[in-house]
C-alpha cells in the first residue's frame, strides 16, 4: 500500500496545476464557456499538445499508457480551474468506449483524431425516460440488409454540438431495462436522420437531445459485440463517474479555501467574520468533508487501477460522498460568502453550479447509495 505519487504523476500534476494558475483564470474560463463551441479550440489543442488527451490510452493506440489515477489527478486540477474543455466527453467517455471495445479499424479511424484534438465525439448514455439507469434503453436498432436502422431519443449528450461521431447504445434484443440486448453503434454525426437540439447547461458546459429517425448504421458500425454493449457502457460510465468525482474534489477544496480566505477579509461588526465560532466550526466541518472525500477518491482510483472486483461499489461510495458531504461544502461556501455568493460576477457561484451539475451526472447520491447497497449484498 502506497499513497505517494510516482515521478511521472507528480510531473503531470505540476504541469496541469501550473497551466490552471498561469493560463486559465476565471475570466478566461468564462470567455471559453461563452464561445459557440462551448470551449476554446486553441486551448483544447494545447491539452493535446501537452499530452493530456493521450494520458489514458495504451502506447500502441498512440497514448501514454496512463490509467485511472492519472485521469483523476488531471480531473482534480480541472475542477480547481473549472475547465470547460470537453475532456470528459472526448477522452473519458468516447475515448474509453473505443479503447475498450473498438476493433483495430475503428481505433485507427477515430482515436488519433481524439488524441491530437482534431476530432470530437460524444456518448449518448441517457434517454429522456431513463433517469440514471443506463440499462434503460428504449432506442431500437432493427437489423436490416447490410446493417441496422436506429430509432429513438437520447438526452444529455455531452459535447454533441462538436461531435464528429456519436456512440449510440440501442436495443437489438431484450426488453427495455435488460442489460443484455444493448449494442453500441459508432455513427458519424452527419448521418441522415440525426436531429440535434443542443443547449448550454447550467454549469457553462453544453449538451444536446438527439432525435434518431431511421438512422442507418452499417454492420461495421457495431462497437464491440452485438447485444453485449452493456458491460462497456457500464465501464465507461463508471470511469466517467470517477472522473467527475475527482473534478468535484478539486471544486470542493477550492470552494472551501476561497471561503476561508473570504472569511478572513470580510469585516462585519468591526471584525473579520472568520472570527465567529458559528462560522469557524462550519468551515472546520468543510475541511473534514474535503479530506474525507479526497481519501475516498484515493480508495476508488486505487481499486480501479488494481482492477479490483469491488471497484463499482467504491465508485458509488465516492459519488454518494460527493453528493452528501460535498454538497454541504458547496452550499456552505455560498452561504458564508453571503450575498456575493449568489452573484454571477463571483467565481464561487460558477463553482457551485458546476458542482451541482456533477451531483446529478451519472446518478445522484440516492441512486448511488442504492447501488452501493445492491453491490454489498
Amino acid at each position: 500500500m502506497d499513497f505517494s505519487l510516482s515521478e511521472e504523476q507528480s510531473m503531470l500534476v505540476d504541469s496541469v496545476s501550473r497551466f490552471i494558475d498561469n493560463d486559465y483564470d476565471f475570466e478566461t474560463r468564462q470567455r471559453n464557456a461563452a464561445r459557440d463551441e462551448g470551449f476554446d479550440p486553441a486551448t483544447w489543442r494545447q491539452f493535446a499538445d501537452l499530452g493530456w488527451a493521450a494520458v489514458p490510452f495504451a502506447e500502441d493506440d498512440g497514448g501514454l499508457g496512463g490509467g485511472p489515477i492519472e485521469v483523476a489527478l488531471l480531473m482534480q486540477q480541472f475542477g480547481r480551474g473549472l475547465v470547460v474543455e470537453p475532456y470528459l466527453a472526448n477522452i473519458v467517455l468516447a475515448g474509453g468506449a473505443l479503447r475498450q471495445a473498438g476493433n483495430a479499424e475503428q481505433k485507427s479511424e477515430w482515436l488519433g483524431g481524439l488524441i491530437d484534438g482534431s476530432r470530437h465525439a460524444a456518448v449518448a448514455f441517457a434517454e429522456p425516460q431513463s433517469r440514471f439507469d443506463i440499462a434503460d434503453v428504449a432506442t431500437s436498432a432493427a437489423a436490416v440488409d447490410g446493417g441496422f436502422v436506429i430509432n429513438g431519443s437520447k438526452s444529455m449528450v455531452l459535447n454533441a454540438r462538436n461531435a464528429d461521431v456519436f456512440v449510440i447504445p440501442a436495443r437489438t434484443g431484450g426488453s427495455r431495462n435488460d442489460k443484455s440486448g444493448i449494442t453500441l453503434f459508432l455513427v458519424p454525426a452527419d448521418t441522415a436522420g440525426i436531429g440535434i437540439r443542443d443547449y448550454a447547461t447550467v454549469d457553462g458546459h453544453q449538451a444536446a437531445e438527439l432525435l434518431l429517425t431511421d438512422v442507418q448504421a452499417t454492420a461495421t458500425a457495431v462497437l464491440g459485440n452485438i447485444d453485449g454493449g452493456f458491460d462497456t457502457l457500464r465501464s465507461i460510465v463508471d470511469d466517467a463517474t470517477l472522473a467527475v468525482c475527482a473534478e468535484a474534489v478539486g471544486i470542493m477544496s477550492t470552494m472551501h479555501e476561497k471561503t476561508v480566505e473570504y472569511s478572513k477579509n470580510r469585516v462585519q461588526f468591526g471584525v473579520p467574520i472568520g472570527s465567529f465560532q458559528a462560522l469557524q466550526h462550519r468551515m472546520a466541518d468543510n475541511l473534514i468533508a474535503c479530506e474525507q472525500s479526497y481519501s475516498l477518491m484515493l480508495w476508488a482510483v486505487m481499486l480501479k487501477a488494481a482492477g479490483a472486483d469491488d471497484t463499482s461499489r467504491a465508485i458509488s461510495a465516492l459519488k454518494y460522498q460527493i453528493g452528501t458531504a460535498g454538497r454541504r461544502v458547496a452550499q456552505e461556501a455560498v452561504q458564508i460568502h453571503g450575498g456575493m455568493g449568489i452573484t454571477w460576477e463571483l467565481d464561487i457561484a460558477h463553482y457551485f453550479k458546476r458542482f451541482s451539475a456533477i451531483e446529478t451526472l451519472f446518478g445522484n447520491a440516492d441512486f448511488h447509495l442504492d447501488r452501493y447497497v445492491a453491490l454489498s449484498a
Partner: protein
Amino acid sequence: MNVNFSADEIAFRDEVRTFLDEKYPQDLRDKQAQGIRWDREDHLRWQKILYEQGWAAVNWPVEYGGTGWTVIQKYIFANEIAEADAPDMIPFGVKMVAPVIYTYGNEEQKERFLPDILQSNVWWCQGYSEPGSGSDLASLKTRAERDGDHYVINGTKTWTTLAQMADWIFCLVRTSSDVARRQEGISFILVDMRTPGVTVKPIITIEGEHEVNEVHFDNVRVPVENLIGEEGKGWTYGKVLLQHERTSTAGVARSKFRLNRLRRKCGESLHGAAPLIEDRNFARKLAALEIDLKALEYTDLRTLAAVAVGKAPGPESSILKVRGTEIQQGLDALFMEAAGYYALPYVPDQYVAGFVQDERVGAGTETRTSLTYFNNRKASIYAGSNEIQRNIISKHVLGL
C-alpha cells in the same frame, strides 16, 4: 500509488493471525464475546502476553522496546487485533504517559518507568480534567507547591478512567500562578497512587457502571524527581500527548469489526422476523456509515503515512478524533436500533463474570447495546470535546 499488500506484509498478517489463534486465551475470548467487562487481572494477563511476543509497544522507538513496524504493519496489526475481538491496550501507560517520558523525561525516569509500562507491571491513569476544568483545561487549579525535595499537591482531578485499578497517575498541576498566559506555570508530575492523601471516589456513569472517578489530593507529598521535563512546561508536553491520544481515538479497525458484525447479525433472522438487512432504510443507514468509515480509514492511513516520514501528528489529528467518534456513535445507535425492544431490558448482571447464561434475556448481547450507546456518548466529549477539536482545526489548520 497502490492498495496492495506486499508478500512480506501478507506474511506479517499471517504471523499476527497465528499468534492470536494460539495465544489469545479462550476464557478471555468468551468474556469478550458475551460482553462481560474484563477485570484488572484479565487486562494485565493479556497485555503481558503481548509483551512476551514483543508487541506491547507498537509505537515506541525500538530502543525502548518498540516494534519498529512500518505504518502498514501497524495498520495490519490493529486490524487483526480488532478482527479477533481482542481489546486494545489500556492506553494510559503505553500510549499516553510513555511517549511523554521517553520524549521529555531524563535517563533515570526512563529506566525507572518505561520497563514497567512495557511489561504491564504498573497500571496508569490520567489526571487532566478537574471539576472546574473540562474543555477549558488550562484553567486547572490543582496546585503543586515546592517544599524542599518535594512538591505538595492539593486539588481534585475528575473523569479519571479506571483510577480504581491504577497504581500511578500522571497529572497536569499548577506550579506557578504568576504567569502571562494561563498555559504557562503548569507542570507534568507523576504520582504514586499509594501516597498518603490520595483518595479515589467512584462516579457512576449513565449506563450504571463504575468506569470513572474523582481523585482527591490532600497535601500529597511527591518527590521532585517525579517532575517530567522542566517545571512550568507541562502544557507543551501534555499537548503532544493529546495529539497522540486523538490519533488513536479514530478507532478505525474496531469500528470496521463492529460494522461487519452488525451487518452479519442483521443478515440473520432474529425472533422469526425477516432479516433486518432487507429493510431498505436500515440498509441505507448502514451503507452510509460504512462509506464514512472507509473515508476515515484512508484519512487515517494518509496521516500515518505522513507520520512515518517524520511528521508528528499535527492538528489534523483532530479530524480523526471528530470523525472517528461520530462514526463510533453512529454504530452504537445502529446496534441499538437493530436490537429493537431487546435494547430496553436493564439487565447489567448479564455482563458480569459468573452470570448463568441460560437465564439470559434476549439473544446474544442485544441488551448490552443500549448500555454501550449511553456510555459512549462520552466519545465526542472526552479527549477534548468535538467542539474543541473544531476550534483547534479553525485556529491551527485554517488560520482563523
